[in-house]
């Protein structure tokens, strides 16, 4: 079984994000970029399936600027077998990504595609669902546990108020939630080996997809600054402040 794992290059979760002065977006020049953490979970799950013998090949896909190749290398160092880079300067929105992934899926014929449930930069939570619709495949989103048996896959989903278990037939789409697994660290030998694994370079046109954005961003602004809090010395003081200052009791 072949698994496709899309990996997105995003601003590192440790970076304090700054809005560009002209309000058109966030500052990414000179900012540390990393793999979207939910995608790391996706790579880890794919590698575990391969280690268990349930998968034979893992293909990592990234889209965007040439530096996305670094994100693919990270996936290769974690255990993916090869990469596909779709290079474009276009601003990629979920629908365009889903269309590009559909084209790749038709070429590669994977049995399973594991995406992150969302990317930590735009928090869209849309690509996996759109891809499932475009391919006409079943989807198990927000997965916290997956089990493959024969041609079926059981997915435990994290939903409001509890866990839901769904059974899908392969080929299928999975999107990962935080608790699915804890991604591994790449060891030095695996980083070295990743250098030698192949990455194919494609353009959206090669896949017959026009990645033009459908939505326009009107404005990006920082959230209002929170005022500094105060420390209270005792419960009595807290109650007093809730009465007189916050006026909530």
């Amino acid at each position: 079984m072949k698994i496709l794992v899309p990996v997105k290059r995003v601003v590192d979760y440790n970076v304090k994000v700054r809005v560009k002065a002209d309000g058109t977006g966030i500052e990414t020049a000179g900012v540390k970029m990393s793999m979207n953490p939910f995608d790391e979970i996706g790579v880890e799950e794919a590698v575990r399936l391969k280690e268990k013998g349930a998968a034979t090949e893992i293909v990592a896909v990234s889209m965007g600027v040439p530096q996305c190749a670094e994100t693919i290398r990270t996936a290769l160092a974690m255990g993916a077998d090869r990469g596909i880079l779709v290079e474009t300067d276009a601003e990629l929105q979920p629908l365009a990504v889903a269309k590009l992934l559909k084209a790749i899926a038709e070429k590669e014929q994977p049995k399973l595609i594991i995406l992150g449930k969302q990317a930590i930069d735009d928090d869209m939570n849309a690509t996996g669902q759109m891809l499932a619709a475009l391919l006409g495949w079943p989807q198990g989103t927000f997965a916290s546990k997956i089990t493959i048996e024969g041609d079926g896959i059981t997915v435990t989903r994290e939903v409001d108020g509890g866990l839901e278990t769904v059974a899908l037939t392969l080929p299928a789409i999975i999107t990962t939630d935080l608790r699915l697994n804890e991604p591994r660290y790449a060891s030095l030998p695996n980083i070295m080996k990743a250098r030698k694994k192949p990455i194919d370079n494609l353009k959206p046109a090669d896949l017959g997809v026009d990645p033009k954005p459908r939505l326009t961003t009107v404005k990006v602004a920082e959230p209002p600054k929170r005022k500094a809090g105060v420390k209270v010395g005792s419960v009595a003081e807290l109650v007093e402040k809730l009465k007189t200052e916050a006026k909530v009791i």
Partner: protein
Amino acid sequence: MNFALTDQQQQIRDEVAKLCARFDETYWLERDRTATFPEAFFAAMAEGNWLGIAMPEEYGGAGLGITEAAILMQTVAESGACMSGASAIHLNIFGLNPVVVSGTETQKRRMLPPVVAGRDKACFGVTEPNAGLNTTQISTRADRRGDRYMINGTKIWTSTAQVANKILLLARTTPLDRVQRHSHGLTLFYTTLDRAHAEVRLIHKMGRHAVDSNMVFFEDMEVPEEDRIGEEGEGFRTLLHGLNPERVLVAAEAIGIGHAGLARASRYARERVVFGRPIGQNQGIQHPLAKCWAELEAARLMVMKAAWLYDQGLPCGAEANAAKYLAGEAGFRACEQAVMTHGGMGYAQEYHVERYLRESLIPRIAPVSPQLILSYLAERVLDLPKSY
């Protein structure tokens, strides 16, 4: 000229940082308080094969350069592991360079893989109480008895000798009065630290309690001839090969500690409110921290330059020494400023910067003092009369 890290170097930094994040501030505080070697950290570094970063691939390493090793060491120290983490692995990373450079094929096959895998821990026995920085004056003797040598004498400051099973040892095989030059007649060994004939006594020191330093008293410790590295009498020359890269690594560690201190100081300065504003809004707090950043980054560039020269096979003595000097001073000043920025809290262990400060003195003093570096630069670069 290109100042950017390569993809691979960046990846090394990222992965090592992730690994180090598993060993948080409380882990290191506890190691320091209880003076226990960071075994779990050491094992994790060995498991990721990071110890072999600069060792040849034939012997289990990754065959990368001293540049990558320096990036690794800076990242370890910068994680808050400081010298407690860096010194725990320092010798495994590059200590066996003399074996790589001067060892026979048989020796390399026997000695390198266990160190790369972390099965062997090595310590480094050069400094002696009565010789100081004047290394050629050491008095530990190695007397030949057939196909073995008998070691007698005293070493001081031998770090990790409490936990190490191997020692890289410099000893005199020809007495000083029978050699033409003081640097002749010294021989280097890499051998088992035989505790039946080597008494290891802990030195109670200022910091880095997790990684011990010791006096070692040798009494008739036997070393087989197979454990001699390079020719008899050529030990000083053999050792010299490794000095520049070692300076580069120590410098990188110092930069790491400095940045660790600076990060804590800046965070505290943003959060601590006194007189109705964050203390970091005062230039009296900002400027010293900004200066520390500038000094650390300037020193880091010198470290990277020295590492690059070494990896290109070019002479790097002046740069490696200057890097170690600049980094040692900048690392120390950043940690000192970190304590001062915290005010009284800087003196509390819970805020960690006092530990950083105690540890930041080590790369300043060792393996060579700032004075001796300046004397070296004056002599070798400025062509002034030798003063030492």
